[in-house]
């Protein structure tokens, strides 16, 4: 009968070219194309700014851009995980600050050695993330609310603990703290002056990338964002993995806090609000969908670079600060719209 032949004919054709034969298609599909687009925009921006100003494409300026990307970039790396699950973390900025204040307290108030301060800062971030995760997964409160509350709580706690004053890492014992971000391992090794913060950012990006694509954590991160109910019915402990994801985001916020404090050599308790939105913007420009299920670390890195290249380039061209934010806002909308257009065509 003809219609039986129709479908199985298709099947047979497929059977002769088993797994992987279609890979060249899957290469062109999905995130790769979008990343190429984002990457192309980044290159284009760099070229445009290089031609517009002699001060742009010089080593020191490029390092400045990378350095200013590092903190937001690390926050964005962490945010990517939550966003891929279809959630959101509005607290990454203030958790970052809270972590840096805790590090300051441990090192300068308590006089503990620097490594202990670092561990304490990261643990603080992780704990905040863990709490958010528990509230989202177990108490079933929407992520937006949970992390909004966490944002307020950590903002307040930072001010309380620090006595609303900045904590300076200038005492004898804390003197090496600045080096975490600002010294350069590569300088002593190869003579190229790349600040540690930048190296740490790229190192963390690789870790995050591996985590998201090669590990069980990453697999469930995507599964949760794609269809939580189906994931649950498949026997995956959905609550547990959600908590893991929020904790990971917290760890990244903690690390960002230390980078930030070290770079300024100060833990500023009032800093950090608003960073979460810049981080989310970077993630979204990088092609991660706020509705969950898709996203890449490479995209986030590119997204973070695009925002800081733009800011830097516009500043060099003496575009006023106010206009810089307007332009970045437009870029954000443009990036997402380009993605929607591309998807509609496919």
């Amino acid at each position, binding site marked *: 009968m003809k219609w039986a032949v129709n479908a199985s004919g298709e099947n047979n054709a497929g059977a002769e070219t088993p797994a*992987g034969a279609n890979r060249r298609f899957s290469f062109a599909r999905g995130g790769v194309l979008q990343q190429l687009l984002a990457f192309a925009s980044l290159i284009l921006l760099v070229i445009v700014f290089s031609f517009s100003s002699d001060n742009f494409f010089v080593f020191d300026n490029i390092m400045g851009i990378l350095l200013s990307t590092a903190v937001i970039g690390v926050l964005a790396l962490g945010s990517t995980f939550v966003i891929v699950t279809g959630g959101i973390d509005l607290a990454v900025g203030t958790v970052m600050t809270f972590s840096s204040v805790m590090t300051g307290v441990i090192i300068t108030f308590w006089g503990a050695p620097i490594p202990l301060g670092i561990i304490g800062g990261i643990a603080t971030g992780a704990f905040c993330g863990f709490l958010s995760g528990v509230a989202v997964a177990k108490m079933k409160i929407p992520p937006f609310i949970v992390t909004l509350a966490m944002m307020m709580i950590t903002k307040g706690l930072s001010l309380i603990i620090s006595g609303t004053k900045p904590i300076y890492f200038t005492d004898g014992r804390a003197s090496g703290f600045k080096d975490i971000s600002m010294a350069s391992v590569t300088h002593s090794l190869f003579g190229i002056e790349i600040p540690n913060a930048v190296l740490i950012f790229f190192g963390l990006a690789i870790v995050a990338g591996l985590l998201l694509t090669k590990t069980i954590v990453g*697999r469930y991160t995507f599964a949760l964002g794609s269809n939580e109910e189906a994931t649950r019915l*498949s026997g995956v402990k959905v609550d547990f993995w959600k908590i893991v994801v929020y904790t990971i985001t917290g760890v990244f916020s903690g690390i960002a806090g230390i980078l930030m404090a070290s770079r300024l050599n100060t833990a500023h308790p009032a800093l950090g609000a608003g960073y979460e939105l810049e981080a989310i913007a970077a993630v979204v420009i990088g092609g991660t969908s706020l509705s969950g299920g898709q996203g890449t670390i490479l995209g986030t890195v590119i997204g973070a670079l695009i925002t800081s290249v733009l800011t830097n380039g516009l500043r060099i061209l003496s575009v006023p600060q106010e206009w810089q934010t307007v332009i970045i806002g437009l870029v954000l909308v443009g990036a997402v719209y380009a993605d929607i257009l591309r998807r509609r065509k496919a």
Partner: protein
Amino acid sequence: MNAIPLVAMEGIEKRFPGVHALKQCRFELRAGEVHALVGENGAGKSTLMKVLTGVYRKDAGRIVYKGTEVDIPDTIKAQQLGIGIIHQELNLMPHLTVAQNIYIGREPRKKIPLFLDEKALHEQVRHLFGRMNLAVDPRAKVSELTVAKQQMVEIAKALSYRSEVLIMDEPTAALTDSEIAELFRIIARLRAEGVGIVYISHRMDELRRITDRITVMRDGSYIDTVRTADVDMDRIIAMMVGREVYHEPKTGGAAKLGEPVLEVTGLSRGKAIRNVSFALHKGEILGFAGLMGAGRTEVARAVFGADPIDGGTIRVHGREVRIKQPSDAVRHGIGYLSEDRKRFGLLVDMDVQTNVAISSYARFRHPTGWMKRDKIAQTAEEVVRSLKVKTPNVRQKVKFLSGGNQQKVVIGKWLTRNSDILIFDEPTRGIDVGAKNEIYKLLEQLAAQGKSILMISSELPEILRMSDRVIVMCEGRITGELSREEATQEAIMKLATLHSDKSAGHESVTSGGNPK
């Protein structure tokens, strides 16, 4: 056959808020049998099987598995016991690949267990697909597959657990005939291997083909279990509905075509719709037949303004209209009943009355801007009564209704809107025989009242029974139009497989090769 049954459920009770879904229900499954579970929409079939697979907890009752009483608090426990289920609703993660979906929750790991072993994963999938004789690219994203292929992935997933009990909740609702044949081959092989299979379906013809025994449920209660060979299907249907159902043939003589109310000319959209023209007349039921993916739904969506079109004109009552979005279509009196009601037809988180009224709010608005709540409730109650929607009250959330009853709510919505052009896309998918007949009668009444109906259906008997005229599509084109008298199964099938150019990469018909 005296061996202990594989599964025995006794005295199962389950209550949802306002619904007594299972009342002292029982069920027995033996190894190596295909056991049909049938009943009207809302009878409790899915609920009973969800109790068995740990999706819901039973309120009371016993489950005995291979001779020992078991407690199945969650889906993980069911999987460990070897009880697999393919749910009525697709349960896949669209952004993940086929392979990732199948082994979700049991991914093979590297030596450091944090890391995934993709190679081993694909090895396992290849094995599994080889066993199933299934040709799907394991690396394809599930969102890129057709619904039928997605269904096959679900089946593969359930099989991959090496389940000893396999439950299929309406697996064929979205499959084509050849895919159904393939599924039946798989079922036969599993049965031979001693797997106990529960098969839920509203398609009576399938029961005869593959099942050994049939258990009938009605209103949450167990009615009877019979051997398929011993009964005729009318008896089963009578047990299901508690009365005899008559299959009345379509009444009324040859179609007296009224004036055209909807004229579509040269409609096209990419490869999906190629130069489609047709006219729908007043008081007519126009059937759209074709294979899955022939482009019928695409045409319906385009006419309704749900998708942008590349070209073509649409006339309603002789006047050319521009339909750019669904609200335009609704304003011109067109109603669309989507084939995927969950995604496009219903607000599942809202109650029945809201869903019934949502397209007609203008009618329920007081001049002051307030909603006439009484009138909404009253209208909704009328719809519930006339369509026999099984719901405790009109304030029940639609997501708690059974599949068939959800469908009735969508129909009620457009009836309330008083649309005079109604596009029904697979109106009886997942609807039981009793309700099917009601819906058929309803469509005929509507046509008799002068409404015009465009009905897309993949079930040929339905097309033949209902249509005044039949339009057949294939690969986005209209391949023929048949009058009532010309329309036969053979004629329709021939047109439905009338593929155009073999050169364009669609070598399916002639060089497709032998299925075996």
